[in-house]
C-alpha cells in the first residue's frame, strides 16, 4: 500500500475524506485485502480511542477556580508579582542572597559608624570611638584618653597621655571654680611645667607618659585643649553628668 492510500483511508475513518476521493477509496478497499485489513485495524484503534474518550469523568474544579480568581481579583497586583520566578535559577538565588547580605552589612556598617556610641569628637582629627564617658585621640606621636566619672557633686576626669613630642595641655574653667590642686598628677612623669596660670586657664607642657586627674565642683564644664606647635590637636569639653563636644 502506498502512503497516500493509507492517508486517504485515515481521512475516511476521520470523516474528512474529500467527496472527490470517496469513490477512489471505496475502490481500493474493494480490490485490496491489505487495504481492507489496514482499514479494519485502524478503525478498531479509532473506535477504541473514541470509546475511551466517551467514558464520563468526574471532575468539578469550577468552585475552586472561582474561589481562586475571586481572591486574586481583589488583589490584582499580587498575580503580577512572581517572586518565585526570580529564584528559578539557583545562581540567581545565591546572587540575591549575597546581594541582600551585602546590603544589610553595608547598612549596619553605615549605621554603626555614623552613630558611634561615644561622644562625637568634633573637629578632632584622629579621634577614635570609645565607650560612653571615655574620649580618645590618637596620631602617630600622641595618644590621649580622657575617662570621665560623675558623682552627685563632682566631675572627675582621668587623663592619660602618651606623647613622643612635647605637647601643651590647656584646661579652662570659665566659672573660676577649678583650683590648681584640683589637677592632680598621678604618674611619676609629672608635668614638665605649668607655664601659665591665669584666672581661667591652666597650661601644662607634657612629654612622655603622663596621667593626671581633675576633680571639680564645676557644673558648667571644663574645656581641655591639647596643642602642639600652636595647632590644636584635640579639644574637649567635659561636663558633669553629660558631655558636650
Amino acid at each position, binding site marked *: 500500500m502506498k502512503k497516500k492510500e493509507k492517508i486517504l483511508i*485515515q481521512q475516511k475513518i476521520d470523516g474528512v475524506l474529500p467527496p472527490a476521493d470517496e469513490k477512489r477509496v471505496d475502490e481500493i478497499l474493494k480490490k485490496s485485502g491489505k487495504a481492507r485489513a489496514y482499514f479494519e485495524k485502524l478503525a478498531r484503534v479509532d473506535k477504541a480511542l473514541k470509546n475511551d474518550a466517551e467514558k464520563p469523568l468526574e*471532575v468539578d*474544579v469550577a468552585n475552586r477556580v472561582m474561589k481562586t480568581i475571586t481572591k486574586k481579583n481583589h488583589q490584582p497586583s499580587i498575580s503580577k508579582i512572581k517572586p518565585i520566578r526570580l529564584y528559578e535559577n539557583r545562581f540567581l538565588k545565591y546572587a540575591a542572597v549575597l546581594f541582600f547580605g551585602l546590603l544589610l552589612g553595608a547598612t549596619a556598617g553605615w549605621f554603626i559608624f555614623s552613630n558611634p556610641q561615644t561622644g562625637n569628637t568634633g573637629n578632632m582629627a584622629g579621634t577614635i570611638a570609645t565607650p560612653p564617658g571615655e574620649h580618645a585621640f590618637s596620631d602617630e606621636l600622641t595618644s590621649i584618653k580622657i575617662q570621665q566619672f560623675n558623682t552627685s557633686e563632682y566631675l572627675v576626669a582621668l587623663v592619660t597621655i602618651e606623647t613622643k613630642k612635647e605637647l601643651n595641655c590647656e584646661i579652662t574653667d570659665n566659672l573660676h571654680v577649678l583650683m590648681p590642686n584640683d589637677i592632680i598628677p598621678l604618674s611619676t612623669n609629672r608635668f614638665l611645667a605649668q607655664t601659665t596660670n591665669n584666672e581661667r586657664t591652666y597650661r601644662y607642657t607634657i612629654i612622655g607618659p603622663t596621667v593626671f586627674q581633675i576633680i571639680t565642683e564645676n557644673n558648667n564644664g571644663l574645656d581641655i585643649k591639647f596643642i602642639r606647635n600652636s595647632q590644636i590637636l584635640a579639644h574637649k569639653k567635659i561636663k558633669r553628668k553629660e558631655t558636650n563636644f
Partner: protein
Amino acid sequence: MDEDRKIIARIINGSVDQYRKLVEKYQQPVYRVILKMTGDAENAKELTQDVFVRAYESLEQYNPEYKFFSWVYRIAINTALAFIKRQKRFVHAEHLPEIAEENFNEHDGERMQIIKQTLQKMPVNYKTVIVLKYYAGCSYADIATITGEEEKKVKSRLFDGRKLLKKQLLEKGLFNNF
C-alpha cells in the same frame, strides 16, 4: 463559539462570575486531555484547576479571532507537558507507573487498559495530536491552531502517531481479542 466570546467580553468588563460558565463548559474535556497526557488522575485535577486560573489571569491576552477552547487547550497541553517534564526528572520514562485513573474498572477491560498504557508511553508529539483528536474532539485545523503547526504537519503527525499506536497495540496482541 460566539457565546464564549460574549462571556469573555462580559468578564473583561467586570463580571467575574461569568467565568464559571466557561469553566463548567470546558472542565471535562480539559481534564480529559490533561489526564491522557499525564496519566495521573489526581494531579490532572490540580492541573486542570491551574489551567483555568492561568487562562483567567491572561484573559486579556486572548485573541478573539481564535476559538476559546483552542486557547484553553493550548494552555492545557503546555501545562501537561511541563508536568511531564518535571516528573521525568524523578522517574525515567521506562519506569513510569501504570496508569491509575480513578474511573478505571473491570468493565473497561484489558483492551482499554492496554490502550491507555500504550498511549501513555508514546512520544509526546504523537500523543499530543492523538489526545487532541480523540479526547478533545478537535479537528485538524483546531489541532494546528493549538499546537501552532501547519495543518499538513498535524495530519502527518497524526498519521505517524496512529501508525505507531496500531503497531504497539498489535505487538500487545490487542487485535487478537477483538
